[in-house]
């Protein structure tokens, strides 16, 4: 039982960076912008967050720095793709490559360093409960914050005027523009929000999940987060579900291996990707379903 509890806890930790980045990219995409620079933003933020965490000795300062770095990096994307109406796909890819190089260069001084703060937490009282204490209440605060963020985003999107505006801009920027919404301003805002979330995810990786900076440490999680938004058909709670699902597949695979269960680990390594493909295939089978959920202007340039 205790092992199952640890497994749940590890799954929640593993899914958190995916959830953070995924939820940010979801808002991005709901406003019609596809930012393929996620991986680059996460890398930049991981390096910046680690540097600040290292010098200040504070995880919070590091996380904030990561979010700020993500926002700044996303502004480059906004300037190019929204301001100058460059191709969103190419711009995003370029930023990913740029981010990978820049973070490697900037992080050079921090290779081999480690952060001075401790990363173990427990909620007093609740963490004493058998099973649930270990499974749910001994996690880093960021894990709960990510869930809270998901709730807030879901509520904003579905229930508020701001959410309605974002969705309108994503569905038909021309109509939104015609009735007087500042389409480009709103999109810069959502991209910045996406940058902040990807930044938090990157800093979470380098400060809390594996507290070290090494080049390329995001290791494709930015791309998984991008796939996640499609996997979740642009619905916030489904992003959370998908993030934990992907987190759990790796953890379950490793836990089985540690128990000596004979199962080809290569086969299990494929599972998250097979799951994405299956969902994509199922979703694409139904055109009405896609039309209902996918922001109609996703990835298309908008000239005011």
């Amino acid at each position: 039982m205790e092992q199952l509890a640890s497994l749940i806890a590890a799954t929640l930790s593993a899914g958190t960076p995916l959830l953070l980045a995924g939820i940010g990219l979801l808002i991005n995409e709901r406003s019609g912008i596809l930012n393929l620079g996620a991986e680059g933003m996460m890398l930049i933020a991981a390096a910046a967050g680690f540097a600040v965490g290292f010098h200040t000795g504070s995880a919070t300062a590091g996380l904030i720095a990561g979010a700020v770095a993500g926002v700044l990096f996303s502004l480059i994307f906004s300037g190019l793709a929204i301001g100058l109406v460059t191709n969103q796909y190419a711009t995003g890819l370029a930023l990913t490559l740029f981010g990978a190089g820049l973070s490697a260069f900037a992080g050079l001084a921090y290779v081999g360093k480690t952060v001075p703060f401790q990363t173990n937490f427990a909620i007093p009282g609740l963490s004493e409960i058998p099973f649930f204490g270990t499974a749910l209440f001994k996690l880093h605060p960021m894990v709960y914050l990510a869930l809270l963020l998901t709730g807030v985003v879901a509520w904003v999107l579905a229930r508020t005027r701001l959410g309605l505006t974002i969705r309108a801009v994503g569905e038909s920027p021309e109509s939104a523009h015609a009735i007087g919404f500042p389409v480009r301003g709103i999109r810069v805002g959502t991209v910045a929000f996406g940058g902040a979330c990807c930044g938090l995810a990157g800093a979470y990786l380098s400060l809390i999940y594996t507290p070290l900076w090494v080049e390329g440490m995001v290791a494709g999680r930015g791309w998984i987060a991008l796939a996640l938004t499609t996997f979740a058909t642009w619905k916030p709670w489904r992003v959370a579900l998908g993030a934990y699902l992907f987190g759990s597949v790796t953890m379950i695979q490793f836990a089985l291996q540690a128990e000596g269960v004979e199962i080809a680990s290569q086969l299990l390594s494929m599972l998250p990707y097979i799951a994405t493909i299956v969902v994509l295939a199922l979703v694409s089978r139904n055109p009405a379903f896609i039309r209902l959920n996918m922001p109609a202007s996703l990835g298309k340039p908008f000239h005011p």
Partner: protein
Amino acid sequence: MLNLRRSLLLTAMLAAIGLTAGLAGCGKEEPKPAAKPADAPKAAEAPKAAPKPEPLKIAFAYVGPVGDGGWTYAHDLGRKEAEKEFGDKIKTSFVENVPESADAERVIRDMASQGNKLIFGTTFGYMEPMLKVAPEFKDVKFEHATGYKSADNMRVYDVRAYEGAYVAGMIAGKMTKTNTLGFVASIPIPEVVRNINAFTLGAQSVNPKVKTKVVWINKWFDPGKEAEAATALINGGADVLLQNTDSPAVLQTAEKMGKLAFGWDSNMTSYGPKAHLGSAIINWAPYYKKAIKDALDGTWKGETNWWGMKEGAIDVVALGDMVPADVKKMAEDKKAEIKEGKFNVWSGPLMGNDGKEVLAKDAKGDDKFISGIMFYVKGVEGKVPSNK
């Protein structure tokens, strides 16, 4: 509707292109410091002096980033030391993040056509690509790490990392409280399997009750996955971990969860001082110096160099303060024995974990035996992954 689908498809395609491009990485060349100004007038005064011979151009292909703090970092330390030793007689460059795929062939061919005369491929997966390129460049010398195939102008070098794993195992066997060790393994090839076995044999030599659990992550470098595998092993009862992966994440996870672990490839003390029992390190510098000297002197010939503690290529260093003095002494004594050639890790009787005898009493495993190890010894749980 069609547009929607098309753009989705386009996204996927671009994402794929981006991934490959990202993996391919980019080359870097370290600029040599400019010649001292004092040299310039001298050269002008003696115009008849023979022109300096062109430096020997040497290239290194790395599988990870030089900043990985492990495998590639150790290779790069070796490269830098060789550069210091030979000064302006050589000119080295490297390309990092070269995937073990068709990309490797392209990178290695590029290196050869750019005039590099000595090329080091520093991971097992470059074996076939190098073998393909080598016949096309007869005047270039190829050096491949940890493989088993060679050609007229391509030779193999390797280190006996298992000697470090054995000594680490002895320390682990003394330090474990649960009698369960954990091993985070990368790719199921003999190089890795024998390290798992050596670690277990070392532990069992001092504590026969020990068993080893293994988790394969099928990657050399992915700190997140390495940490997840370490977590799974600790949840499964392991309290001392070793890894054959390239980052310090396993050590850090042990530190976080209050367990013990080792550094691998490089000295990793700083990543988890409370958990760090010691680091089994590889020092590539002695071999790189030898290989470069061979090439400079014209004595380079096809041979296999497999270096261990004796040649100074393998060591276990920076033993932690929590290791008791008698355990430290035991480790040092064993290192001395291995150095003097008095001890062979692969000594019979050796039992496989399926109960069959692999080496009879008094038999010793030779290099051929060692390079083909694809089974677990007694004490390791599970089976080596294979598709058979």
